[in-house]
Structure formats: C-alpha cells, structure tokens
C-alpha cells in the first residue's frame, strides 16, 4: 500500500514540475523581453516587437497563449485529479470498478465547446492575417528588392539606385507620417527565408516566385535576424542586420551610397590586383570594370560593419583572412580562397578599405 502511494505522488509531482518548467520558461521569456529589453536589441525575441506586423502577431500570440493556457489548466487539472483520485488504493481487492461505457451528453459537451473555441480562434487569426497580408502600400513607402543568395543577402533600392548587401537600412516610421519599407523577395538559387523577429514574421525567398513582406519600425537601432529556411552548407551564417535609421541618418546614408567610388590613386596597385584577378567575376565596384553579381556589391564595402553576411566584423585582419582563407570564417561558403602573395594581399585590402 505504502509503495503504491509513493508511486502515484511521484507521478503527480513529476508532471507538475515538468509543466511548471515549461510554463515558467515561457513566462520568463515574456517577462525578460517585456521588462528589460537590452539597449542594442541583441535578443531577437518575437515577444519584443518594434514594428506593426510583429506587434500584431505579438497581440495575437497573447490571445492564443491565453486560450491555450486556459485549456491547458483545465485539462491538466482534470487529468491530474483523475490520476490522483482514482488510483488503486486497495491492492488486494479483486473487485472491479463500475464498468461505464460512455455518455452521449458528455461526448456532446466536449465536442461542442472545442468547436466554439476553434471558431473564436479562427476569426481572431483570420483578422490578423488580413491586416498584415493585405495592408495597403502608402505612397511614402520605401521599396526594396531583397534577393537571397547562397549564403548572403542582396538589397536593391530601385527607386534610389542603391545596391548593397547583408545590412539593410530602413527609415524609422513615424505613425503620424508612416514610411514603411516594402520588400520584394526573390531568390537567385535555393529557398531562403527573411526573418527579423522584432520587425516582422518570416517570408520565404523562393526561386521563380515573387514574395512580399513589409515592416514599419517604430524605433531606431540595429535589429538582428537570419535566414530561416535551410539553403545549403552555410545556412547558419547567412545573418541579417536591419539598421533602422532616423530620417536624417537614413537620408545621409542614401546620399553616401549614391556617391560614385572615389578614385584614390595611392591605392592603384590594390585596384590593379582587384581588377586583374577573379574578384571581378563575382563582385561589382561602381565605376570600374568589376560588374559581377554572384557576390556582394563592394562599391561601399566600408560603410558596412560586417563581412561574410555578418559572420565577421569588417576589420583589416578579417578582410585579409576572408580573402586568403574564407573557410576559416565560413567553411563551405562560395567565396574562393584567392591565394595571393602577401604584397598583393596587402595592396588589395588597402584598396578595399578605400571603398567608403
């Protein structure tokens, strides 16, 4: 008898602990993200939204969590009650309990109530789907074409004539005068997915298909995301940064990006290395004969804070390493090791560092 008791309570306690860990974990995350958002937004949490689509999802998620939480508590309570209450306490008694085969009324009740819950959940969800997917595009919207590549992001601003990579710049959107960013999503090779959790849910970039997403960030700062659809060897280091700029900073960035490359005759040696090696097959630098499009556009390389799709800081040492041995930073990336002499490498890096 005592043995029996011990067993049952272990079941109950075990269940309770397991569940508390689960719920506690979720609550902890929600609390963490709501309470103390780190200043540079380093946690890309979906519960810390900074843009309308992410906020609508966040509100819907509260509703869904509340309903599922309620269902959980009720069913968990009933199951736990049944397990504890109806445990076999007399080990010796051969008597079987009352044999009950079912009850139509009870079956009806636990069919109809869930149906009602489903209807409510569906309506709430459909409303948010419509609000996000069918949102009108205001005239002031910034348009960007994002193209997924193995394993980096190409961003083109057709109206502004800007081409950049991996670090998207968008203006902050003032709710009074919204300047949302609408992205047209394409892929040059395999499937990718554009995901910056704090700004919007993910949307895939699929070859032969044009997808769309949008965001209207309400706060400046750098937001992190990354490719969310397995796209090949280096899917993991296809990182994504979105820099949300104040209108002035954004305009200044646009102005700088539109500048042609300044020809710096001091670095003519490095430029010659660049233009006479395989670099030009894949990379473009405005105003030169380098027009490749397999790799990121390097016209304003130095305006970016990272290289290799966010895999490394944009520093002299990392540039050198990246050119000589890309596998040291990002094994399996499509950038070939250039095998340059030290003198050529130094010259090339010095040249790249003039590309502001």
């Amino acid at each position, binding site marked *: 008898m005592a043995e029996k008791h011990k067993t049952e309570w272990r079941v109950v306690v*075990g269940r309770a602990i397991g569940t508390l860990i689960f719920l506690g974990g*979720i609550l902890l995350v929600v609390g963490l993200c709501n309470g103390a958002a780190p200043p540079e937004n380093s946690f890309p949490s979906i519960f810390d939204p900074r843009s309308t689509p992410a906020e609508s999802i966040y509100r819907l998620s509260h509703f869904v969590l509340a309903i599922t939480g309620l269902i959980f508590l009720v*069913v968990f309570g009933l199951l736990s009650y049944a397990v504890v209450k109806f445990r076999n306490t007399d080990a010796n008694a051969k008597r079987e309990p009352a044999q009950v085969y079912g009850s139509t009324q009870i079956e009806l009740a636990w069919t109809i109530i869930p149906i009602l819950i489903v209807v409510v959940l569906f309506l709430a969800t459909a409303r948010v789907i419509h609000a996000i997917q069918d949102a009108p595009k205001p005239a002031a919207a910034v348009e960007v074409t994002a193209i997924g590549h193995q394993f980096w992001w190409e961003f083109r601003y057709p109206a502004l004539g800007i081409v950049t990579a991996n670090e998207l710049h968008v203006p902050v959107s003032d709710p009074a005068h919204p300047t949302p960013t609408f992205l047209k999503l394409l892929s040059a090779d395999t499937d990718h997915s554009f995901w910056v959790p704090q700004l919007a849910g993910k*949307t895939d970039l699929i070859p032969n298909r044009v997808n769309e997403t949008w965001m209207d960030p309400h706060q400046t700062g750098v937001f992190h995301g990354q490719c969310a659809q397995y796209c090949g060897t280096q899917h993991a280091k296809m990182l994504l940064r979105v820099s949300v700029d104040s209108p002035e900073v954004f305009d200044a960035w646009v102005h700088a990006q539109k500048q042609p490359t300044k020809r710096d005759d001091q670095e003519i040696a490095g430029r010659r290395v660049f233009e006479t090696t395989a670099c030009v097959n894949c990379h473009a630098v405005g105003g030169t004969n380098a027009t490749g499009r397999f790799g990121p556009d390097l016209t304003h390389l130095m305006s970016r804070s990272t290289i290799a799709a966010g895999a490394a800081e944009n520093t002299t040492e990392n540039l050198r390493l990246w050119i000589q041995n890309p596998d040291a930073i990002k094994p399996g990336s499509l950038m070939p090791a250039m095998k340059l002499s030290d003198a050529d490498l130094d010259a090339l890096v010095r040249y790249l560092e003039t590309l502001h």
Partner: protein
Amino acid sequence: MSSDAMAIQSADVAGRPWVEALHEWVTTVDHKRLGVLYILFALTFLIIGGIEAAIMRIQLIRPHNDFVSPQVFNRMFTMHGTTMIFFVIMPVMFGFANYLVPLMIGARDMAFPRLNAFSFWLSAFGGCLLYFSLIGGSGLYGAGNAPDVGWWAYAPLTSRAFSPGHSTDYWTIAVLVSGFGSIGTAINIIATIVCMRCPGMKLSRMPLLAWLNLVMAFLVLISISPLSAAQIMLLVDRYLGGHFFDTQAGGSAALWMHFFWIFGHPEVYILVIPAFAFASEIIPVFSRKPIFGYPVMVGATVCIAFVSMSVWAHHMFTIGMNSYSNSFFVLTTMVIAVPTGIKIFNWLGTMWGGKIQFTTPMLFCIGFLFQFLIAGLTGIMLGAAPFNWQLNGSYFVVAHFHYVIVGGIMFALFAAFYFWYPKITGRMLNESLGKLHFWLFFIGFHLTFDTMHIPGVLGMPRRIYTYEPGRGWDTLNLIVTIGTFVQGLAILVFVANLVLSYFRGPKAGNDPWDAWTLEWSVSSPPPSYDFASIPTVSSRRPLWDRKHPEDPDSRYE
C-alpha cells in the same frame, strides 16, 4: 547404431545450427516473426538516429563550437529526420500492427503472408540503402557522402546544380523503396482487418487497436502515393532532364513543397494513430474499465484521418500564399484539434472512476496523455498563421514536433513495449528497471524539449550548425544538450531491460495484466498460427465475458 541415434537426438536437443535458425528468420512469412523483425530493425535504427541527435547536440552545446563541420552537421539532421520517421517510427508501428492485429481479431496470420515478408524486406533494404550512402554517396564529384538536403529535401536544393554526386539519389531511392514496403503492409493490414475477423467480431466489436491501424493503413495508401510520385519526378529531374522542380529551367519549388507536405502531414497521423491505439488498449486495462465512448473514439479517428488530408499547407504558411489560402488552412488545422481533444477527453473518461494501477506501461501512458496535451496546444499556436510566421522554421517548431513524436508517440510506444513484451517473449520486463527508464526518460525529455521552445521564441532558426553568442540562446542550448544525454541513458536502461529480461525475466503466463482482448487468451509467446481453434466473440472484451460470466459485456451491446 544406437549411438548414432543418440548423437542425432543430442544434436537436436542442443539446438539447430545458427545458420538454420537465421534461414528460418530470413525466409519467414509468419506475422509474429515479421512483427519482431520490424521491431528489431526499428530499434537498431533508433540507436543510430539517437547517435546522430547526440552529435548535433554536442555541436550546439555552445556558440561557435567546432565539434563537427557544417557539412557533417547538415548530414546529421538530414539522416536523423529521415531515419527516425521512415526507419524507426513507421517500421516499429508496422511491427506492432503485424504482431497484434491478427491476434486481436482472432486470425491465424495476415491476409497476404508473402507480401508481408516482401514489404518488410523492402523497408529494410531502403534503410540499408540510406546508410550505404555514407560509403557510396560521393559519386563522380566527390561532393559529400550522406544526404544533406534536410528530410523534406526542398527543391531546388535537390537539383543537380546544388546536389552534385549521388547522396541525394540514395535519399530519394531509400525513401521510395521503403515507401513501396509501407504500401504493401498497408494493403495487407486493410485486407486482414476487412476479411479475416473471427466469427462474431463485427467492425463495431473490433478492438480499438485494430480500428486505428485500419485507419492508419488507409492513410498510408493515400499519402505515400504522392510522396512516391514526387520521388520519381525528382529522379526524372535529376537523370532524365525533367524540370518539375528545377527552378533554373522554369520548374516550381513550391510544387515539391505541396507534394511533400500532402504526404508529410498525414504522415504525422500515420505515426500518431498507432500510438493512440496503444493508449486506447493499455489505459482501460490499468484503469480496470472499458474504453469510454468506443464509437466516438472510432469516429474521432476517422475524422482526424479525413481532416488530416486537408491541412498540409500549414507547413507552408511562410511561402507567400495569399490571405484566403492561409485562412483556409488555419481553419482546417484548428478543426483537427476537436477530434483530437475528444480522444484525450475519452481517455480521461476511461480513467475516471477506475482503479488506476501504476505499472510501467500505465506510467508511460499517463506521460503520453500530459505531453500530447501540451504538444497539441503548441500545435494550435503554430496553426495560427501569423504566429506561425514567427515560430515556423525556428526551434519552437522543432520542440513542438519532438513533443508529438517523443513525448507522445515514443511514450505510447514504450508503454506498448512494456505491455506486450510478455506476450511476445513469454517473460515480463523488469518493473524496477522499467520505472528507472520511465523517470530518466521523463526528466531528460522535459529538460530537452521544454527548454527547446524558448530559443525558438528568441529567434533561433532550426538547422543551423552554429550560432552567434549573446542572443540569449547559449544557456538554453546547454540545458537541451544535457537533457539529450539523460534520455540517452534512459534508452540504455531500456535496451538493458529488453536483453536481461529476455533471459532472466519471470515467466509471464498467458495473461499477466488481467486484460480483455484475444491475444491474452493464447500462450506467451503465441503458438504457430495463433489459435488452435478460431475463437468466437460476442462483445468488445471477449476475455471479460469469459472471466465475468455473471455480467458479460455482451449484455450491453
């Protein structure tokens, strides 16, 4: 003369040569032996798939770890997923169905014993072919060995441009071949249940396990077919110049997604319905009550099967379908929660007012109930399309489907092992080791998969071989990895129990659990051809009627 006779006799007593025994197992068409072969095959692959999981978890134990290369990591998650779905859970479910269905419906074998053997060996061949890719997958280009395209193998990653060499072909053909095996077994299960029930066993008296396996077999027929078609189309693309999925030649990547998930979602129910079947047999026995609402349970299962065929695109909410399509699939996805909920409530109703005995199989069933509840609720979260845009492709979804497959299906499966092992081997599994297995696995499971939801919420995508520090993912991944090893330990205890009990376990007798279905009326292990004389039944619980002639079930039906 007499010494010759003696020698022959003693050789007989010492046992036949092992080659002969092996030959008997390889050429067998007996449903029980094939069932055991399926189960052993699945257990072997379970260990292999588990090792692959462990390799991934060691790699992810801290950010920027370099335990394995990205290439190896990508192969590991592809092989882990493919192995666990196609070569562990499916065969083990077929194994139990093979073993139990004829016994439960009072038949002497499956309808097509030779087809049965053929199907098993096809599946086994498929599994071996998949792993042969480790040696033979390099092909001309030397581009890797094991497949590394993910277990959904999304186009166009599988096209020759992105998957040179033969590793993807091994994946395709392994899945194709084992799919043919699955179709054969499904036909066999349907024919057996429809044609070979013993006298008196009307469909409305059939044990729920047989009913649920019937529904599962229909789902296999319907969903494996498009998968096989898609695999053949992929082969045409790769070798005969087709362009179904070759986006560089105008093919459609989304087409593959539709094909795959039209298979992929019913597949979830192919795996989970047999798990429901175990719970529906085991919970009544250890609650000492008949299943609550038998006809509703059957109806709910059939309903789940139907609805499960119209929900596939909820795996594709992020591919840019329009708002109407998304809303439609939200509705169908949420509707499926209703019959699933009904099943949980009916199990609850079965326990209610019973005398619950906490044997190891019942512990696993109770674990199954609670964990499947949570898995269902996170499923509702994922079913709300906008929420899905955030959660899909993240670790949240990985945690969700492992909650279904490990917390739900595996727990029910372990219950089935502890429940029917005595019938299959004639010996009881050790209860203390069983409880140790349960608690270790329970703790490991929750450490791993409860925790795993959180990095998903914090923006960690799945299928990444490493991650950046400082995003709040580090500690969580460490806990997940620790949990994995606790689960691994539990599996070792389980395997030890299986082996030790086979030699040392106490004799089980015909009916160790005082249960009610026909398999418990024959000896353990059952004799060849199961029943000396075909039984006749007059209710859903024939052995209850036999044990309680004063108050038989047949009076109430």
